[in-house]
């Protein structure tokens, strides 16, 4: 594009890191100001018109950040290390319940407040600082990932997939039955845990007026959640890219491409795979915790297999192994899931005069996306360079690598 504009020379003199960072930087600046120009877009289209429903609202954007984080986390497991994880939702649940346990009135006779923000000390229960909880949730989920991973990671690829699927089904059921674990009410069962404390900056508000002491204090709380989510996405992206280029990241790729050769070269298989699990789970837990805090509740019904498959679908659609592709896949599919399909359906019905209930078929559409992508473009929308070569060679010249070996 730059060559066509006659800027070829000037552009190539710009240092490579700047060149590569330019597009993401522009996108992120545009995203940061999204809440401020959202209403301009809708009013340009026509407020309350059917077409305006297609514009993602700020709450949808918050959910999109959550799913992008999860997709990036799963990408570490599936895309980098080549381990198919069908129970990713278990880590999401772990993170959400960390928020549920340590920032609600669930254990209400006890009254522990640790640097909690925006919660009067008269409110009973455990109330830890929510920022601290985000970190705790990540670490807890990572430990959970290690606990699940240690016995299972020596299984072959497809067996590993089914074992993770099993964990992904057991965890929600255990949570659902958790109102009576040997007579103790741990998770409050199907009624879930609510309300969860809001995010906030407490007394920091007095020093920096922009930061609310608690998000419910401000009228545009959703925007603050959105900016928080965006910050988490950037942090996740940064981690993913740095880990990918690290020794560990290269070890993952080596294992994915040929496990036996990698082991022969001195890559410790179990430790490397367990790290992949732990780091993938780390981000899953963070996303779960943030989402639970955002909607101020967590229910066992939030953790169905469908979530795991949706996140997997995001990774596949975007391009396994490529963080930008996965971001795109996560954003597009979560948008479709929470707003887009309904809006598209309404528009279609509006134009064609029909009355299809499109959101009902969300998961069928996701299934179709998975099948079509695997058949026609297995490398995803924005493929990772290395993965692309693997898939092409793998299909034509026998098995270049066997992800399951």
């Amino acid at each position, binding site marked *: 594009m730059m060559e066509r504009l006659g800027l070829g020379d000037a552009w190539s003199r710009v240092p490579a890191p700047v060149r590569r960072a330019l597009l993401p930087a522009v996108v992120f600046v545009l995203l940061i100001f999204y809440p401020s120009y959202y209403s301009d877009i809708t009013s340009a289209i026509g407020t309350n018109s059917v077409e305006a429903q297609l514009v993602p609202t700020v709450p949808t954007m918050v959910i999109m950040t959550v799913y992008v984080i999860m997709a990036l986390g799963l990408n570490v497991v599936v895309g980098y290390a080549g381990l198919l994880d069908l129970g990713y939702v278990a880590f999401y649940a772990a993170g959400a319940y960390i928020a549920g346990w340590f920032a609600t009135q669930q254990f209400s006779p006890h009254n522990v407040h640790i640097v909690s923000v925006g919660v009067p000390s008269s409110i009973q229960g455990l109330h830890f600082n929510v920022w601290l909880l985000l970190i705790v949730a990540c670490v807890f989920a990572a430990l959970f990932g290690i606990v699940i991973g240690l016995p299972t990671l020596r*299984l072959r*690829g497809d*067996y590993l997939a089914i074992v993770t699927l099993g964990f992904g*089904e057991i965890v929600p059921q255990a949570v659902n039955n958790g109102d009576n674990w040997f007579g103790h009410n741990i998770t409050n069962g199907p009624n879930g845990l609510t309300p969860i404390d809001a995010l906030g900056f407490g007394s920091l508000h007095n020093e920096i007026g922009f930061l609310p002491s608690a998000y419910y204090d401000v009228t545009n709380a959703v925007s603050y959640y959105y900016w928080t989510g965006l910050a988490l996405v950037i942090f996740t992206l940064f981690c993913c890219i740095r880990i990918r280029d690290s020794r560990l990241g290269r070890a993952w790729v080596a294992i994915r491409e040929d496990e036996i050769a990698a082991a022969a070269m001195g890559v410790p298989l179990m430790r490397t795979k367990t790290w992949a699990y732990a780091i993938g789970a780390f981000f899953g837990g963070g996303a779960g915790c943030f989402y639970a805090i955002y909607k101020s509740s967590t229910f066992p019904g939030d953790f169905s297999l469908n979530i795991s498959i949706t996140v997997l679908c995001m990774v596949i659609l975007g391009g396994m192994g490529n963080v930008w592709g996965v971001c795109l896949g996560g954003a597009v599919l979560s948008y479709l899931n929470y707003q887009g399909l309904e809006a598209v359906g309404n528009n279609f019905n509006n134009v064609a005069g029909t009355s299809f209930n499109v959101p009902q078929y969300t998961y069928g559409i996701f*299934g179709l996306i998975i099948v079509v992508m695997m058949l026609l473009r297995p490398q995803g929308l924005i493929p990772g360079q290395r993965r692309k070569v693997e898939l092409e060679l793998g299909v034509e010249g026998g*098995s270049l*690598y066997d992800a399951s070996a």
Partner: protein
Amino acid sequence: MLAALPRFSQQINRVFTWVVVALFGVWIVGNILSAPEQFVSVLLLGITLGAIYALVALGYTLVYGIIELINFAHGDVFMLGTMVTITVASGWLGLDGSQAWYITIPLVLVTLLAAMAFCGGLNVAIERIAYRPLRNAPKLAPLITAIGMSFLLQNVGAAIWGFNERPLTSTGESIFPANTLFSVGGVPYRAKSLIVVLITIPVLLALVYLVRNTKPGKAMRAVAQDMDASRMMGIDVDRTIAFTFALGGALAGAAGLLFVMFQTSTRFDLGFQLGLYAFTAAVLGGIGNLTGAALGALVIGLIQAFNEGLSWHTPGSDWTESIIFAILILVLVFRPQGLLGEATADRA
């Protein structure tokens, strides 16, 4: 990689296995002693469930045996089998359990053939469209496709037959006469339970005969062992795989009919979970092993019935799913070759 495991972990495995088996035995004996009649009625229910699971599990094990693919869509093929049964039996043929036995039985057999043909054909079509193009792709590719296919089939089922629970007949009765054959402890054993076992056993025997003694069966076993070598020997590999999918689908269709006749209702999303139970059964028995799949299915059916029906120190139906998946995980981790499978290094 198994060889690299320290020896003591194998001993731990053995001790652990015996502890689990012993605890299970104590629990069973305790239940027999506390309520013998209840135990027998639950046992009969478990056998019926096990028979249905066996038919589905065989589909998994056949497909896995030949192309090493966990066909996640299989459970949903089964679900479509239940739906087709409803359409054919109560919609087209008008069965509602009020007809005499000499009308009911032939028409049920007609429905059985229809469901088997439909599911067999569907399974072949799925293989042709979704799995065959990926046969040389990295192994996770067809697995992921199978998951996508499963969701797609669920929604196809929902689009045609609706998102709500579908009763078999408008009266809520089974199409099969609800005659009580005998009662154990006040729980009736009905003809519809017996017919499940009566249809399953000959189907299983026919399948075993087909795989062991006929030419297509021989071709299946050859392809399962070495695809390239059997191609060189003149076996049409694609056709053999398609035949395997047809067989598996037909079994799922039969299971669909029996299931809906037994439970008298079905739902668009029930196939996935039942499919996973059946897959657990196949793994438990030793995946790729026909007898093993049937045995594993019987065990899973019994465990489910015990857990949901017995009362002495029983977790109850809230935990059925967790228990069955825990079995799946434990078997895969500690004994990946299953009860009857051979220990091969690449299985684990």
